[in-house]
């Protein structure tokens, strides 16, 4: 068996091993790639920038579960850091029962980390109930989206911790979508499309989304039509957003997505190399077999 035949019969375990090496090694050596600023990422960033500080809160829905948190949680963290650093108020919610635990966990962690940084730098800290609020899981995704359009406080009578939403400073004078500058849906499914149907088309609410790379191709048309004001695409979108927050606000914290971009690039290069090599090997082996007949 020659080299090309051996390559054609290469076991998948070897490919897994090589992928693991391509991912693990760059994590130890910090290779930093120049980060771009795609228009879709800028759209969301600029929309949040345009909100007046300490005014009406924007809404962020964690419409994902742990299976896609690797791509979507870095987006949530970056957006929260941006909101906290620029004094933008935010309401967090989830349309999935599994997502609400993630929402609470990620938000508390980012708030704690931001407050440690703010105290050290002598800046304003963030306070639960004033600067951010976590809303509880409410069933019936489309019904919830429509219900927010009628009355936010009837949809969420209490917050995640059981406080009456009427008593929270963050939600003061917030009645429905008219007061919510933008709604962001972070999802690994088609939920952002439902937000367009029930919040954008019905109530003219501005919608943005953060989606997994695998579903990104489905969402680009909505960005083009203006139904989304911005969109973060997979880990790359999260890294671009982290980079924007780092450049403009210099908030302390681990930039998970930026760190993840170098292993991602190495793994992609390896896959491209293997696809080319696999095709060359296929044709050479085919030619050799034809000759030997």
């Amino acid at each position, binding site marked *: 068996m020659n080299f090309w035949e051996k390559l054609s019969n290469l076991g998948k375990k070897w490919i897994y091993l090589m992928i693991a090496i391509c991912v693990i090694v760059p994590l130890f050596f910090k290779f930093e790639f120049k980060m771009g600023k795609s228009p879709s990422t800028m759209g969301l960033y600029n929309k949040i920038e345009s909100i007046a500080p300490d005014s009406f809160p924007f809404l962020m829905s964690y419409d994902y579960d742990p299976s896609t948190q690797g791509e979507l949680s870095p987006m949530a963290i970056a957006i929260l850091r941006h909101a906290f650093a620029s004094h933008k108020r935010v309401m967090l919610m989830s349309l999935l029962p599994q997502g609400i635990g993630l929402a609470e966990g990620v938000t508390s962690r980012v708030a704690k980390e931001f407050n440690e940084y703010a105290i050290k730098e002598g800046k304003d800290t963030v306070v639960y109930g004033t600067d951010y609020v976590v809303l509880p899981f409410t069933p019936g995704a*489309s019904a919830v989206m429509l219900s927010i359009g009628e009355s936010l406080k009837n949809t969420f009578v209490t917050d995640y911790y059981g406080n009456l939403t009427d008593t929270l400073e963050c939600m003061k004078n917030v009645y429905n979508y008219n007061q919510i500058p933008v709604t962001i849906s972070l999802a690994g499914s088609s939920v952002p499309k439902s937000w367009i149907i029930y919040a954008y088309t019905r109530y003219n609410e501005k919608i943005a989304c953060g989606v997994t790379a695998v579903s990104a*191709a489905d969402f680009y048309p909505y960005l083009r039509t203006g139904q989304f004001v911005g969109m973060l695409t997979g880990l790359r979108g999260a890294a671009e957003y982290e980079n924007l927050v780092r450049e403009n606000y210099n908030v302390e914290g681990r930039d998970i997505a930026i760190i993840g971009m170098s292993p991602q690039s190495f793994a992609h290069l390896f896959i491209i190399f293997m696809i080319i090599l696999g095709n060359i090997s296929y044709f050479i082996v085919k030619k050799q077999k034809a000759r030997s007949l």
Partner: protein
Amino acid sequence: MSTNIWVWIAAILTLAIYSFLYKDNIIYKIAEYLLVGVSIGYTTAITWHNVIIAKMVVPVVDYHRYYMIIPAVIGCLMFTRFFKKVSWLSKIPISFVIGAGAGLGLPLAFQTYIIEHSKDTIAIPWHGGNTMLLVDAILIFIGVVATLVYFFFSVKHKGVVGKIANIGIWYIMISFGATFGFTVMARMSLFIDRMQFLLHDWLGLIH
């Protein structure tokens, strides 16, 4: 190295799931069944507290909103499916869901998916003489028409129709390629996340 017991449990379960890459084994099976069990248990608990208690028990008991019992009873009719003689009653909640869903969703979905996208395909943008936008719009228009022609099976794909359908195939293939590329990126991102968790949160080997 982490001293948090939950980080250790998560790390061991991550490794247990990845052990499948070598071969199917009992450790993988335990982790898999644990995931299914915990997910269902967690969802049930959240649903019980946030739906049954918060949306039904509290309004009725604390605020005396007795009319809330009506939707609850209609919802419970779904369970009649388990009893053959009265299973027809389950059609009542189903009809509510389908009726309300279709009534609310159809006009909005038509506006969202058909009207807005057709408008965007037909309109040629010319913002400040940006030729790239124009090229973009023309390519999209050709792609939409050619792909629709490819799926039009009432006419034989010969001559002009065949040529346009061929262009449609190219567009579909390019779209498949883009989707496959994005899929690789997505799967790799999830793996990178787990590796960051193991090497940073668990072992503390990277910063």
